[in-house]
Structure formats: structure tokens, C-alpha cells
């Protein structure tokens, strides 16, 4: 199986931007139920700027630099809780592969783990707090346990498990983020960040399958 190059990641990021646009109103609606109804909008604002930045990205930007650019752009443009969380996710993921022009599947798993670690370091949430970590954490475990011989299958399982994790947020009482103030009233609603995160990660799969 071939390694992942810069063009692959750029294509993934463009696909993420489309995903953010397509799901904007859905994420916003989910956030309206238990948050402040801006999640989809802010992700859309952020990824619109990501596309602008990618359109002008210097040819000599490597993979780490591309991830940094995306992370910084989200950090600058998204705001709220998800701006710093998604921002450091991408920045830290990229920092794992400094100076590489291609990354292996194992590198990619390391990158995603580093990204998720940084979400946890910044946001201090635990599994079961009804946040995007409820998608990422079980998903990553599956990804890391998967057979490295078939990255496509492994990433597909990863995203499927993330989606399952997002479904599993529905019955939870929120313990972090804006929804935490709702207490029991957050039960019965999906966490918006858990939804956006599996849908964004799904872009790795879709771009591979293309």
C-alpha cells in the first residue's frame, strides 16, 4: 500500500470543507438542541477560509506545514470550543511528521492519536462526557488495533466506530462544553462535535476510495 502524500491530504481537506458546507445546517441544528446553535456555522466559516488558504498554498509546503496551515486557520477563524480543539488537532497531528514528504499508515495513526491527545489536553474531557472525544477515543482504539496491511479497511472501521461513538452520545448527560449546563435535558440529543468529527474523518476514507 502506497504512502500518503501532500496532495492526498490537500484533497482530504478540500473534501472536509465540502462536508462542512453540506452538513452545516445539520450540525447547527444539533448544536441548537443542546448548545448555542453555531457549530455548523463556525465550522463552515473556518473551512471556507481553509479552502482560500489551500488555493494559495506555496508549492514547497510539506505535509506538516499543510496540517499547520489548516490547524492555524481553524484556530483563527472558528473560535468557540471547537476552534481551539480542531485547530490543535490538526496542528499537533502535523507536528508528528515534520519534514516528511510522505507518511505511512502508521505515521497517520500516530498523527491522529497526537491530534486527539491534544483535544484531551486542551479540553480536559473524558470518555462519556458527551463530546467529540466519544467519537475519537473508541475510533482510535479500533484504528490502532486494525491490520496495517489494509489502510482503507482500517480507516473505514475507524470511522464506523467513531460514528457508533457519536450515536452513543445520545443517551448521555453532558459533562463538558456548553451542553453540560443542561444536565438531564441534554439526554436524548446527539453531541454535535461527535457528529462533525466522524464526518470529517470520513473524508480520509472517501478520498482513499476515490
Amino acid at each position, binding site marked *: 500500500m502506497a504512502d500518503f502524500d501532500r496532495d492526498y491530504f490537500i484533497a482530504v481537506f478540500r473534501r472536509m470543507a465540502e462536508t462542512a458546507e453540506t452538513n452545516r*445546517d445539520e450540525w447547527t441544528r444539533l448544536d441548537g438542541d443542546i448548545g448555542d446553535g453555531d457549530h455548523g456555522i463556525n465550522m463552515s*466559516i473556518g473551512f471556507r477560509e481553509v479552502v482560500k488558504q489551500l488555493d494559495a498554498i506555496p508549492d514547497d509546503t510539506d505535509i506538516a506545514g499543510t496540517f499547520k496551515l489548516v490547524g492555524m486557520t481553524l484556530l483563527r*477563524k472558528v*473560535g*468557540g470550543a471547537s*476552534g*481551539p480543539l480542531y485547530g490543535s488537532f490538526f496542528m499537533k497531528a502535523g507536528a508528528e511528521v515534520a519534514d516528511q514528504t510522505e507518511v505511512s499508515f502508521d505515521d497517520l495513526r500516530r498523527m491522529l492519536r497526537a491530534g486527539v491527545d491534544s483535544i484531551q489536553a486542551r479540553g480536559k474531557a473524558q470518555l462519556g462526557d458527551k463530546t467529540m472525544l466519544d467519537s475519537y477515543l473508541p475510533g482510535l482504539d479500533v484504528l490502532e488495533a486494525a491490520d496495517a496491511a489494509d489502510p482503507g479497511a482500517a480507516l473505514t472501521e475507524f470511522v464506523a466506530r467513531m460514528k457508533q461513538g457519536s450515536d452513543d452520545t445520545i443517551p448521555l448527560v453532558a459533562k463538558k462544553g456548553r*451542553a453540560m*449546563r443542561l444536565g438531564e435535558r441534554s439526554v436524548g440529543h446527539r453531541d454535535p462535535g461527535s457528529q462533525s468529527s466522524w464526518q470529517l474523518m470520513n473524508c480520509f476514507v472517501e478520498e482513499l476510495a476515490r
Partner: protein
Amino acid sequence: MKRLLNDGYDAVEEMLDGYVKAHGDVVKLAENERVVVRTELSTEPKVGIIFGGGSGHEPLFLGYVGEGVADAAVIGNVNTSPDPMACYDAVTAADQGKGCLFLYGNYQGDVLNFDMGAEMAADDGIRVETVLITDDVYSAKDKADRRGVAGDVIVLMAACAVANTGADLDAVKAAAEKANDNTYSMGVALSSSTLPVTGEPIFEIGPDDMEVGMGIHGEPGIERKKLEPADAVMDEILDIVLPDMDLKSGEEVAVMINGLGGLPLMDQYICYRRVHDVLTDKGVTIAKSMVGNYATSMDMIGMGVTLVRLDDELKGWLNAPFNAPYLVQ
């Protein structure tokens, strides 16, 4: 409900552009266009006061940048904390060599972003302290966990009054903390606000319903119930706030009625009247009254009551002279 906007994605930038064009004698945009800063900082260096949060709460935060009030405001997307770079750039713009105080409502997104901004400023050797505003009684049991709503303005006034004396950062921070410790709010919403980007409300609410304990971002409150007459709503709010702050006969307070944007002043004064009468009946003295749209949620129909337990020091701070486009006294 309807808005009068161009592309909703441009709303924040266009508003900021309009604001500094209208009030160019008082404020300008810093290099970072999400930072509104005084055209000229004080001639006597003072602690830089930085007030911020999401947009959509106008006149909060930008309307309170001015002479003797905030030195800079950092503005996020609608209902969304500003980003860390903007928070950092606000420090650069507002610092006068005596350090800066971040004042903002206690929301996790804001804490994440402002803290990153403060870290960057610390790397530059600028001291930044933070006071999280936590006045919204209904949002959490522990005072320190509560979110910030219209009490933002009260805490700002206290901090600025002390900063204007030339006091150091610790003293200014202590004043803000004292004001915050004594500030209690609670509100109701009768409608959702309308988001510029989607043109849609954040949530649905029945024609006869109200949401009790609604925040100023449209986060659901704690209870949805049938809309009641203004006096009954005020009584319900006071029944929760007064015991929570343990207000006693003989004490003195400031009362703020904060309109969320879509509620007419007529209704706000009718609400004020009830609060005034109930407090007076209880033997509480009202030393200062503020009624109006201090911290809105765009077009949301709703209001909140803010009570501030006063002593002579706090009273002095709240009666200090201020001169910003939306706070003159």
C-alpha cells in the same frame, strides 16, 4: 424573524466596519480586525481592560470601549468566543505597560481561546490576568461554575473604575472579582434569536411558551413553561435569585433590567417596576437602576434581571464617570 443583512458570512466584519466608522472619534480596529481599540489610550498609563466574547450581543462588548471604560474589545463570530490570536492581539493593542485584565463570561470556548491568548502574551512578557464573569444564577449551583450574562457590564464598570485611578493589575483584578462575587442574574426568553448565516432561529419555541434560565446565546434554559404576565415572571425570577444571593432587608443593591434585543423598553420598564416594588417591600434599597439593552442576543425576545449587592466601595465604582458609546455617566 427577519433581519436586515447582506451575506450572513460577512455580518460580523461589516458590523465592525460600520461601528468604527460611526464612532471613529472613540475607537478603531486594531491590525487584527476582530479587535476594537480606543483611538487613543489614556495619557496616564493604566491597566489595559480587555472585554470580549462572541458577537451578537451588541452593544456588548464593543459598545463599552471608550474613555475610562474598556481599552479594547475582542470579538468572535456570532455567539462564539474570539480566537486566540485576536485575544493576543487585543493585549498588544491595549497594554500600557501595566499589564492587562481579560474580562469575559465563563464559557468553555472563551476560556480555551482567551487562555491561549494570555499564554502568547506571557511569552512576550506582558502580564495578563483573567476574571471570569459568573452571574447567571440558573446555570450552575456553584457560583464559580456559572456562566456570564449581563453581569459582564457590572464587572466591567467596577474594574474600569479602579483601573482609572491608576491602580495596579492586582487591585483591578480584585475589584472585578469583588463585583462578580456580588452580581446575580437570571433571565427568560420568549423567542430564539435569528442567526445571520442561516437566517433561521436557533431553536423552536411555542407561541405561548417561554424558556426560563435561557442564556444570552440561545443555549436552552432549564425549564420551558407557559408564558405568564410580567409580574408573575419577575416574581418567579426573584424567588430564585433573592434566596440564592441571600439578600436581606436593610441591604442595598443595584438593579439592572437587561433586554435581550427584541423586547420593547415598555416591557422592560414594566418588569423593572415589579422588581422595584418587590425589593422595596422587602426593605431592600435600590441605589442604582439600569434598564435597557446592555447585553443582547440580537433579536431574541427576552430579558434578565441582574442584582448587585452593594457596599460603599462597589457603589462608588458603579457611579464612576464612564464615556463609551454605550455607557456614559
